[in-house]
């Protein structure tokens, strides 16, 4: 774990938050670590990482305007490429524009 000390200073949830904030200029950002619900997951056990593998993410960003759902999800995944390569396993994503939220 020593070589990962610099990263370990921030939790993955915090890193996800700051990466999405800067990439998407989110007006609302909610990150919920739901890794405990997937604790028995075969791939999670194999990765050897303790927790911080599964997150629910809600992002509201004007940058989603005019984008399909697929492309909005891709924008989120693109911002988190490093995390996905270092043990982040899955995200459940809610991606809305400020207008869509206001309608509710």
């Amino acid at each position, binding site marked *: 774990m020593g070589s990962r000390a610099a990263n370990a200073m921030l939790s993955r949830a915090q890193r996800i938050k700051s990466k999405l904030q800067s990439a998407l200029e989110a007006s609302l950002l909610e990150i919920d670590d739901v890794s405990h619900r997937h604790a028995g997951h075969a791939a999670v056990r194999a990765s050897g990482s303790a927790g911080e593998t599964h997150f629910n993410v809600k992002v509201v960003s004007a940058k989603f305007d005019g984008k399909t*759902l697929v492309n909005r999800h*891709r924008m989120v995944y693109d911002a988190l490429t490093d995390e996905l390569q270092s043990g982040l396993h899955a*995200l*459940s994503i809610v991606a809305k524009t400020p207008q869509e939220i206001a309608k509710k």
Partner: protein
Amino acid sequence: MIYMKGVPEFPQCGFSSLAVRVLKHYNVPLSARNILEDPELKAAVKSYSHWPTFPQIFIQGEFIGGSDIIMNMHQSGELKEKLKDIAANRDKTA
């Protein structure tokens, strides 16, 4: 077509399981590949669709998305429309 973790009868991931359950609801023919058993296939699908996680759902060759998107389309009625067209076309050619 669904690229998933495990097989439809025994999914090895909650998201794959959810996606299979949604798709089965529509009674359409479903092909599945287990990407846990084939790392090369897994890498190829990821780069083809530009999508990093599984499951991944394709309808008639078109990339639809992962489990969140399938669930969303299921709830909005969009998935029903999409699969209805397929069923109608198949009946015509049969």
